[in-house]
Each structure stands twice: as C-alpha cells, then as structure tokens.
C-alpha cells in the first residue's frame, strides 16, 4: 500500500504531459497537442458547469449530454451523405441541439417540479449511458460491431496534430461567445443576477425560470459540442460502444470550471492545465509504474480544495498583495 515513488520523477512525468520537459526529441509540441486535445472537451464541459453556477445551479449533467451529443454527431456524420462544408456544420449543430434537448429535461423538472438538478442530472446521465450504448450497438454501428460507423470524409474536422482537431478553435470561440453573452448582453446579466442574488432578481421582475432554462440550454449546447468533438476524431472517427471515449469528461469539467473560477475566459487556461494533467497520466504509468488512474484522484482533490472559500480568499489576498 505504501506508495514508494520518487516524487521528483512524478513531477517530471507530469511536466512531460504538458510538453515542457524535453528529454528526448519526441516530446515537445506533439505532447502539447495531446494536452490540447484533452483540453477542448474539458473547456466545453467546464462551460456547462460554470454557466450553471453563474445562475446558482449545480449542473452536473454534462456527462449525459456528451453521450447524447456524441451519438447525434456520429449518426449525422456516418449515416448521411451531405455536401462538403455543410456536412461538418450540420454535425456540429445537431450534436449541440441534441445536448441542449437532453439538458431541457432537468431544466423543466427543476422549474415545474422543483426537482434538485443534482439528482435529475445524475439519473439522466445513467439513462443516457444505457440509451447511447443501445443506439451504438443497434443503430449506429458500421464496419465493426462495437464502433459506430466512421464519419464520412465530408463530416470530419480538420486534424491539426495527433488526436487534436480544429474543434479546439470552436471551443475557444464558444468560451468567448459565452463571456460576451454573460457580461455584455442583458439576458446574461439577468442570468448572473439570479445566481448572485435571487431575491434581488425577483424584486427587479426578472424571470428566474427563464434564467434557469437559459443556463441549462447554453450548458447543453456546450456539452453537445464536446460530445461531437469526442465522437468525430482520429483514429476511429466514431465512438466505441463501451462509451470509453466519453467517460469522465463531464465530471472533470467541474474541476476545470472551479479552477477557472467559473469564468468563461478563466476556463481556457484551466482546461489546458487539466489536459496536461490527463496527458501526463500516460507518463506516470510508463516512467514510474504508477497507475494512470491516480490522475482521477488528483482531480477529485483539486475539486475538494476548491470548495474551501478560505483557500480562495487566501489566494485572492496574495494576488492583491502582489499588486
């Protein structure tokens, strides 16, 4: 049980994951690309959680919305022949809409019946898990029974390097768009007010239901896109029926959002940090023989640490002193 590893070696392995520790010539930019490939979906699922938190909601349904969005993306990409250019656009939009549709269920349950979003979101995550597994095996499979049909060439995102596709640019654009929405547009202001002070919002005549609905829909759109980015990527250009391609991304997004202080722009560097962490898992295993799953535990500890307001206050005070 005692974990006797050299901690320095551990840090070195982690740095390799970020492409920073260049000992052999294979490291460097290629590693950073892997880290960014993880970062793109993290950014989007973090956005789901962050927009929820801004409206005072604890939306942890990104996991299920990824499954649904990914299934929709694989369906459009592998089973419809559409003109080049329009096809990839259609895949993206349908995946986002599918994610938003799935997010509507907890939103309506919350508004109409007062069901706490944590319970409904987790139940829907599991329902989506079994539903998408069924769809993958019985309706979406292609050449291989356990992998959904390959996306047609017209539906593929351009590959930048390794598993990194151009989706990263869309992800960053979505983050910026959500920032503009929240801080520059009136509905976004209403959404934040509902989260900060629901009583004041009610006095001001702001519809709380509408803010909740909006926050869930934006979150669903982002998570659906994350699903598309995970389903339409090399080398398979489809997803495995075990859903291993999707698993965990929704929950890691919670940690990313908290580290990014639930700010759409802060999420971008936080997602890259978590992407590097996830990529370094490979080196933990090969260099040290530490099981790569440790990274999951580390992410949990980061989330637990972010729960402490005193810690956050301390960080803020340090920053103020530095100024």
């Amino acid at each position, binding site marked *: 049980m005692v974990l006797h590893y050299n901690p320095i070696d551990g840090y070195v392995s982690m740095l390799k994951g970020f492409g920073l520790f260049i000992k052999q010539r294979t490291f460097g930019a290629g590693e950073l690309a892997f880290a960014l490939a993880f970062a793109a979906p993290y950014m989007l699922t973090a956005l789901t959680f962050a927009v929820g938190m801004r409206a005072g909601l604890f939306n942890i349904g990104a996991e299920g919305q990824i499954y649904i969005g990914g299934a929709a993306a694989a369906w459009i990409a592998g089973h419809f022949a559409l003109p080049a250019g329009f096809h990839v656009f259609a895949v993206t939009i349908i995946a986002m809409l599918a994610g938003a549709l799935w997010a509507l269920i907890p939103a309506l349950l919350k508004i109409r019946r007062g069901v706490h979003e944590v*319970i409904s979101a987790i139940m829907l995550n599991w329902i989506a898990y079994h539903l998408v597994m069924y769809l993958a095996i019985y309706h979406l499979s292609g050449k291989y029974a356990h992998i959904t049909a390959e996306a047609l060439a017209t539906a593929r995102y351009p590959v930048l390097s390794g598993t990194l596709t151009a989706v990263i640019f869309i992800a960053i654009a979505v983050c910026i768009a959500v920032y503009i929405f929240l801080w520059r547009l009136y509905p976004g202001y209403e959404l934040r007010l509902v989260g900060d002070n629901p009583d004041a919002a009610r006095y001001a005549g702001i519809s709380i239901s509408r803010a909740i609905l909006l926050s869930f829909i934006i979150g669903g759109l982002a998570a659906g896109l994350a699903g598309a980015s995970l389903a339409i990527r090399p080398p398979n250009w489809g997803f495995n029926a075990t859903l291993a391609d999707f698993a965990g991304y929704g*929950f890691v997004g919670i940690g990313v959002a908290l580290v990014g202080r639930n700010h759409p722009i802060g999420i971008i560097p936080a997602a890259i940090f978590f992407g590097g962490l996830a990529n370094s898992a490979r080196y933990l295993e090969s260099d040290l023989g530490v099981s790569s799953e440790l990274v999951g535990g580390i992410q949990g500890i980061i989330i*637990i640490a972010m729960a402490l307001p005193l810690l956050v206050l301390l960080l803020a005070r340090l920053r103020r002193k530095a100024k």
Partner: protein
Amino acid sequence: MMAIARIHIPRRVLVFTISLVAIVVILYLLGYAGISTKEVARGALFVMTPLALAAVGECINEKAGLVNIGLEGIFLLTAIFGVYGAVRLGSGVAGLLAGSLVGAIIGFIFGIMSVYGRANQVVAGMGINVFGEGMLLFLMMTIWHATSYEVRSEFMISQISTPLGLLSPIIFVAIAIAIVLHVILHRTFLGIKIRAAGEKPEAVDVAGKRVDRIRMFTCILGGALAGLGGAFFSLGWLGTVVKDISAGRGFIALACVVFAGLEPLLALTAAFIFGFAESLAFTVMSTPAAHSFPFLAYFLRMAPYIVPLVVVAIFIGRRAFPKASGRPYIRE
C-alpha cells in the same frame, strides 16, 4: 364526523402506504406471469440495504444542517477498502468495520471542511465523488493489478436462510439502524438537538450547546453508515470489486432522502421501493422471454434511474427543508 376529519395523515405517508400496497399486488400478480416472487423480493432487499444505510445517515446529516452529496464517492472507496480490510484482517466482519471506519473518516474530513472551513458543501461533496471514482481504479491497479477483483468466499459475510431464501444479516442490521435512528431523532433529547441545529442553530448556541459538535457528530455518523453500505456492496452482496461498482446508487440514495422528506423510516421505505423497481427489472431481464429480445436489456437497465426520477418529480411537492440546511453556521 368531526373527530374523523381531525385525524391527519400526512400526504407523504399516504403515498408510501399506497406504493407498498402496489408492490404487494404486483408481487402477487408476478406469480401468475411465471416470475419468481421470492426472487424479486429477495433482490429488492439486497438493493435496499446500501441505499437505506446511506439515505438514513444522510437524513440525520441534513436534519442537522449539512448536505453531503459525496455518498457515491464514499460507496466507491469503502467498497474497495472493505475488501482490502477483510483480506488483511482475515474476516468479512472486520472488512465491514474497516469500510465504516473509512466512511467515518471521509465524513470527518467533510465535516471539518463544512463546519470549520465554511466550504461549499455541494462542491466538496462532488469532489468526494470524483476522488472516489479515480481512487477506486487507482487502488485496484496498485493493490491487485487488475480492473476487477473477485472476493474469496471465506471473506464474504455468511448469509442466513429465511423463508425468502438466503439473506445477508446486514439487511436486518440496516432495517434496525433505520428504526433506532428514527426513534432517536424524534423521541430523545439528542434528536431535538440535531433537529434544532438544522432549523435554528442560533437557538442551540444560545442554549449552550455546541452546533459544530452536533454537526460533526451527524457527519461522521452519516459517513460511517454510507461506508457500511459501500462495504456491503463487495462483501455482502456482489462478491466482487469493479469500476463503478455502485453505479450511481449514491445519488439514488439522495433521491430516497428527498422522497422521504428527511424521515429515516420513510427513507428506508423509499430504498425498498427503488430496490423493488431495480430487482423487478433485473428479474425480467433474466427470464427466457427477455433473452429472445436482447435489446430490451438496455432499457430494463435504465429502470433503477427512471423510477427515482419519476417518483421524485411527482411527489416532491416543494417541501420545506431545514432552514439552515447546507449553510455554515457562523457565530456572531
């Protein structure tokens, strides 16, 4: 007439009674459909046990003003620590105790963070869940170098034979704990203190009792009960440790708590109702008729999640929770 009209039965109790009657009727009808009634009831009791243990603990916890949504994480971690303890200490009972101890430690850490650190309880609880999921896999790879581990039969809690077939004694322990805690909560001074800590912590403080100690106590108790439930998964029921062993049941336990309106006895009943739904789905799945439609299995596997969702959506009724629930108490 007036006297009869004055007898007030809470709507929630009525709903539970109707549900239980419905279950009995369904069980009776199943006999005609060629599905073993005993098998369904037996399965329901097994599913009920971890749900009930965690839900009853969480009821007490929320009554005192803390909301710990990290039950799933506690389940996952104690499922593996229970087995590890059993193998190391050489007995299944010791494993169960090890599981509750680990659960209590997690509850203690959560309590320290929430009571003294004024942490955001929902975030901390979710952190426990993510931590549990990662650590379960990490510990399995580190200890056994495999992603699944079969518990040797000598470490399993031995089952006792009843009219329903073989049952684990832990099932009865869980029922007893629910009854005892219900009585403590509603009939003792300790129970008054716990409820007051959630409703009006200032009053408890003025009366010279320590709010922080009451909340720490309920937190550790809740963690220990969830830990016992987690260890039961591997040592008393499934006989194996795998990834996602609890499959979201920590959250179904939370649904039980909400459905029961924080009443331990109702939480036990809710756990049985949800357990029944799951057991029925799995029994149907293993019938020869279902085997000829393999795709049905995917939909039957959704039942354990659809039923709590629908039940909570229909019966939640916007009940008022303790006023100070989920909020840290800060002395002026």
